[in-house]
């Protein structure tokens, strides 16, 4: 299965809640980037492992994550 996870990065507040619920531990905070709000945004480290469970999207308080699968 191929999955696609899209983050509305500009709106991420770097709260890290999404990183705690990923069963594959592939949602991480990208410390190399600072977004417009001044936070390190969340991203996916290895999309090939994603199972499109949408746990990260469900817990995101700011609803910035969209999950698709092919």
């Amino acid at each position, binding site marked *: 299965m191929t999955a696609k996870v899209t983050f509305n990065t500009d709106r991420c507040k770097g709260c890290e809640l999404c990183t705690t619920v990923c069963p594959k531990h592939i949602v991480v905070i990208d410390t190399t980037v600072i977004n417009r709000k001044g936070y390190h945004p969340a991203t996916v480290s290895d999309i090939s492992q994603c199972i499109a469970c949408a746990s990260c999207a469900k817990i995101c308080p700011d*609803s910035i994550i969209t*999950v*698709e*699968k092919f």
Partner: protein
Amino acid sequence: MAVVYEKTKGLTDVELHYCPGCNHGIIQKLVAEVLEEMGMLDTAIAVCPVGCSVFAYKYFSVDTLQAAHGRAPAVATGIKRCRPTQPVFTYQGDGDLASIGTGEIVHAAMRGEKFTTIFINNAIYGMTGGQMAPTTLIGQKTTTSQGGRTAEQAGMPIRMAEMLATLDGCVYAERVCVADIPNINKAKRAIKKAFEKQMNNEGFTFIEVLSTCPTNWGMTPIQAVQWMKDNMIPYYPLGVIKEKAMEV
């Protein structure tokens, strides 16, 4: 390509003003998803409180009204009585509902007003700067209980769901939290059930959601979730507090 999950149409595109990791965003999203799934976005009417969630009227894409502090149940009573076929809900924090608005919520529940209240309990006053709330736990440090809350001085924390469950007009009271995915799913089911009971004209429905306040608790969002699990859930047990069977 199939979309597995995207932002619900029940929320507007306005950016939330909440602090990073604040559970308000998750809870409002669940309410909005339930309204969308039940096809009530065109008919639902929300009554927003005073507190951190004061701006919720900008976030829900339904008709909303902003009530005076604690008075959301009184306003919702008026709306529901004028529009008895439309879903009406209040969204209130613990300072709003359990402190200044205690009278309004108790009497709305007593009268069995047919609206739903979503009560956010994070054991502190968030917007005003982290003062002690009626729901603050014993020993919890806030700006007005710097040595920790004591029962001698402030009494024991109030359990609103249990208290309202004693009233005959309250047909459904459940306490949930949004700490992880299983609990988020349970919380959404509880909110949906409350709206279903409301639309069946069964009576007053009450969902208490345990929440976090990372900023005023002085923790990271992840630490705050753990603190909530370790400290709040033992005192505020999760589950259905009351479910009255519908009279046939």
